[in-house]
């Protein structure tokens, strides 16, 4: 490959910002467009999507602001893979490709991408990830705790072109529609994604092409990414050098089986280098809680690093360049082969938390104590009278860790998720056969300490029609405290059938789900955050 020579001298602080604003104006417009037209509430309400502009060497340089944080600048690799499968020489203006192959996440996360052209030269890519309703698989929605292979979770596509030279490929669309339980929702979301993609192509042609040639675009991106990398190196250099680590054990019962997993994460900071070693993760498992290297281990470490640096850091592909991740293939976050990934995100908040805690274990003043670190989630699926599918999800909202100078906040979504909103009770009761009995706050869920960990929610609701219940396993591992703080309370999801006194943990014995009858109650207790500092009463006891 020819080493491209970018002329940085042509780029001054003004030109860079004009380019950056121009690029941001494109991702912003695409974001508005896709959230307004998407069908899936996951896209509008949960912001389970992301819009990214990517350089010719597959480095993301601009991304929409409101996406799920774990999607932090990670679409370069799926786009690179799709382009390599197609062959870059075969790409034409107006081509749009679809890929969900080995992105490291569940296959519902489908990336749609398109080359951006200056004349006949590719000057970048636009890519949009959105959560597709499902691509077939064992159950509606594609995510089943019963899956033991990714082939049971739906269909994978790898660089398949939905549009060629601006023309829709009807047979491709028909194939997507043939491989889903939810044709209507999938088509709606796919069309929203496609419209945003083609709009991106148009805006690039209108706003970027007339202002800068392809060479200049390359230089502008190069200078931006280089400056971001330098910023990140300075930020790392400002952290204390040393070797840091954290370990956790997860134990939970699933499908009648006892599961135990040991995690170890190590960090070395040496000047402006930071290496995160994930060799100590548990091996990949037959349960569908694996993630791949790209969208899994790497994404978690990148996001944790972004949290650690904080503030207005220039978040782009350059910012993450100094961060080195060591991970062998075959762990739970670097799974290979046909490892099932329906619940790929289950370990993500844990890895993020361990990264922060590794620093905190040695320097408790620098970071908060651990947060509840669970995606959690109660998923209910049922069919209406007209056989269409209804789906209601209650994500886990627990406590953040306490800090040196304040208690932890809560309840909120975990650190892998972000601006994802709970469905309002009134909307749920108006649209789905559910009824809420109580939604309260456990103010004592956070671990005790000089400052208490964040509080967690405690919800009790009833299903009014038969439906399938799907839950994330809840490991019996509380959020550890820091600097003498106590761990947070554990969370749990249990259910009780009508005319029964017994609260049970859902085991997924009905093909990965638990079948509920009308009148069943579900209790979702979320977990608290870790406390920070020795509790005051223990200080006084020690003094006596």
């Amino acid at each position: 490959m020819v080493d491209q020579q970018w002329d940085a001298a042509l780029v001054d602080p003004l030109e860079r910002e004009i380019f950056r604003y121009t690029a941001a104006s494109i991702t912003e417009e695409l974001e508005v467009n896709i959230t307004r037209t998407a069908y899936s509430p996951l896209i509008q309400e949960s912001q389970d999507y992301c819009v990214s502009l990517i350089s010719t060497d597959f480095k993301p340089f601009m991304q929409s602001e409101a996406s799920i944080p774990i999607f932090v600048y990670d679409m370069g690799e799926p786009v690179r893979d799709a382009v390599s499968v197609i062959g870059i020489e075969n790409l034409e203006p107006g081509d749009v490709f679809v890929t969900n192959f080995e992105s490291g996440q569940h296959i519902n996360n489908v990336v749609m991408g398109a080359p951006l052209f200056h004349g006949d030269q590719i000057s970048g890519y636009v890519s949009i990830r959105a959560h597709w309703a499902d691509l077939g698989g064992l159950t509606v929605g594609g995510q089943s705790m019963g899956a033991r292979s990714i082939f049971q979770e739906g269909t994978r596509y790898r660089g398949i072109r939905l549009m060629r030279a601006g023309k829709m490929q009807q047979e491709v669309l028909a194939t997507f529609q043939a491989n889903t339980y939810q044709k209507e929702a999938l088509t709606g979301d796919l069309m929203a994604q496609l419209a945003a993609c083609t709009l991106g192509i148009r805006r690039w042609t209108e706003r970027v092409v007339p202002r800068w040639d392809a060479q200049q675009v390359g230089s502008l991106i190069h200078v931006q990414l280089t400056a971001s990398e330098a910023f990140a190196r300075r930020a790392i250099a400002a952290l204390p050098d040393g070797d840091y680590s954290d370990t956790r054990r997860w134990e939970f019962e699933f499908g009648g089986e006892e599961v135990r997993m040991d995690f170890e994460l190590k960090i070395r900071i040496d000047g402006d280098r930071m290496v995160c070693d994930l060799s100590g993760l548990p091996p990949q498992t037959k349960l569908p809680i694996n993630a791949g290297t790209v969208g899994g281990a790497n994404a978690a470490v990148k996001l944790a690093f972004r949290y650690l640096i904080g503030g207005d850091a220039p978040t782009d592909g350059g910012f993450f360049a100094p961060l080195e991740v060591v991970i062998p293939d075959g762990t739970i976050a670097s799974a290979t082969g046909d490892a099932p990934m329906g619940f790929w995100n289950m370990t993500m908040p844990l890895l993020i938390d361990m990264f922060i805690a590794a620093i905190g274990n040695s320097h408790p003043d620098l970071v908060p104590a651990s947060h509840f670190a669970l995606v959690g989630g109660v998923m209910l699926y049922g069919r209406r009278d007209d056989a269409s599918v209804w789906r209601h999800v209650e994500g886990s909202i627990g406590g953040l860790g306490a800090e040196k100078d304040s208690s932890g906040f809560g309840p909120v979504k975990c650190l892998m998720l972000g601006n994802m909103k709970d469905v309002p009770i009134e909307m749920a009761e108006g649209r789905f056969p559910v009824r809420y009995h109580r939604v309260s706050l456990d103010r004592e869920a956070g671990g005790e300490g000089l400052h208490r960990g964040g509080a967690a929610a405690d919800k009790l609701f009833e299903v009014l029609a038969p439906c399938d219940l799907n839950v994330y396993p809840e490991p019996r591992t509380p959020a550890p405290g820091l600097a003498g703080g106590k761990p947070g309370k554990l969370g749990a999801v249990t259910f009780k059938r009508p005319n029964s006194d017994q609260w049970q943990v859902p085991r997924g014995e009905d093909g990965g789900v638990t079948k509920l009858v009308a009148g069943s109650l579900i209790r979702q207790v979320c977990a608290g955050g870790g406390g920070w500092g020795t509790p005051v009463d223990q200080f006084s006891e020690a003094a006596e």
Partner: protein
Amino acid sequence: MGTTRIGADIGGTFTDVAAVDSEGRLYIGKRLTTHGAEHEGVIQAVRDTGVDLSAPDTILAHGTTLVINALLERKGAKVALVTTEGFADLLDIGRGNRSEIFTLRFRREGPLVPREMRFEIAERTYGDDTVTCVPTDGELDRIADRLRSAGAEAVAVSFLNSYLNPANELHVAAYLAQALGVPVTASASLSRQWREYERFTTGTANAYIAPVFDRYLQQLIGGIAEDGFKGEFVVLDSSGGAMAVDTAKRFPVRAVESGPVGGVIGARTLAGTLDIDNLVTLDIGGTTAKSALVERGEYATTDLYWIGGEKRGFPLQVSTVDIIEISVGGGSIASIDATGGLQVGPHSAGSKPGPVCYGLGGTRPTLTDANLYCGRIDKDHFAGNFTLDVEGARRAIEGLAAEAGMSPERLALGILRLANMRVASTVRRQTLERGYDPRSFTLLASGGAGPLHACEVAAEVGIDRVLIPRFPGHYSALGMLGANLRLDRTEVVLGGLDELDPAYVRDILGTIAKELTSELTFKGAEDPAGIFFQYALAIRFRGQEHALWIAAPASGLDVPDDLAAQLRASFEEEYVRRYGHLDKMSKLETVELKVVAERVLPPVDISYARIEEGERTEHEALWGGGESVTVAVIARSTLKAGDEFEGPAVIHEIGSTTSVPPRARVKVLEGDAILIDVSKVR
């Protein structure tokens, strides 16, 4: 003979009053805002205008920041919440989102009602609208006792599913108001939309400020009455109209955007006069730029307004003109950031120390300094007899240019360019991102700095026409002169569009119209025929989250038998226009119905002061790539209808300066507004 109308706007720094008497003469009054006793500044500024207040048909429209400030600064009453058993913690839980996605130490501001002031009551309305549990009088008496001993100065009653059936809520609110004698807000009286958290925070915020706002209005109205005012006092409503005093006292949260909305009302009035279909506004002041949209006489509105920002604040579920705001203004500071990029804002020098050229101690170059350096402002006509420190501004620009390794000319033009790009994002959000073609829009500029940037912002977005009203620096108060009484109501109407029964729609419309009519009827405004209605339905493809508002086929409350078919056709057309594609596979469903009622108040016809004679001067300015260009410096008061000329030019008037780029063409319209064709500018 017309009616005397007065507009009084309290801003962060100044309280502005504009008045037009029965002869059409315009009076302007200006005072520093009297923080803590805002009514005093208003009374003084009204007095300053010297307008005769005594005519009984005089109308005073008041826009105030009191409500938003009391909510932001948490200076309201000791408020209690009475809510459904099992749900008192909803105010703490919210929607469970972390709205700052990369912030590890995230936290949101706490609720207005502390936990010990929240009281649960056994009552329940189910999601299908059935009331299964009605609180007993005994229980209500017990709650009243607890509220009394807790010292509640105001009470919010917010029950689950009251959007669907407010019977329990209204019953309890009436009972407690009777028992306690303090303001009581039922959440459903403010919002009939689902989303309990948002409605609960709206109800609590309303109760929280009700006593404060009531006191303030009494002081203000009392003070003006002492000066002889006998007319109708109305309060600007965030949704782009005005409320009678009694309505404002009961629903103070509706006045949350009471100040900024004045300029948008003015824009709507002017668009009507000039027959402009599509107008986007741009108001730039010292710290922020704001943009709103007026399309065929209607505002673009939003149903959610955030107190303290969407990320850390709490929502109000009230209809508000959708004003998009960005932190760019004359005081925005230019700097080089940690990665070596040039930034304009978000930090602002505010009004103290202000821009370097104010000579009040500012040392860092601001947007105003760059405007001065580039000759967009005439140093002798910026703000009355205020002398600008040209040298200071030059030194500040040169200092930053050296740091950035750029020529000062390129840097100064670059600061303007970046500010214009940031501002353009708000205008783009109002137009392009709603699916509109910017070329069909006119940009109306106001605020002290709006007309300085409007032409280049328009060119950036692709808008060809810029409109500068007279006295753009006082436009909010001027705009209030055209306010009408207006109310709206939104209700959830969920179901398939094909199954929408016209009789059912007529029924709901009838009920809502009756309620709105009674709110808009009082002494001096009794004629039911003076009220105009329109309605719209929010429609989407089944399964979609986001809906589009589709206006009824005709204005008024008429419901044609083929309503569904007409709505479908309009929806499909609108959908394609906005999003460029249409999926015929899915069914359509209605989500909400909205009714707007408006009582038109007598309009004013302003005749601006006589045309003055004055010499045009010239000065040197920087344009384009940094070349020096000679520009004409013109006093606005010397321009008369029919005048036409080409830029570059600087047009100065009291409170604002208009910058006209090279190749832009200026035309002075009848009625004194200036229209600038920027289609040749790029």
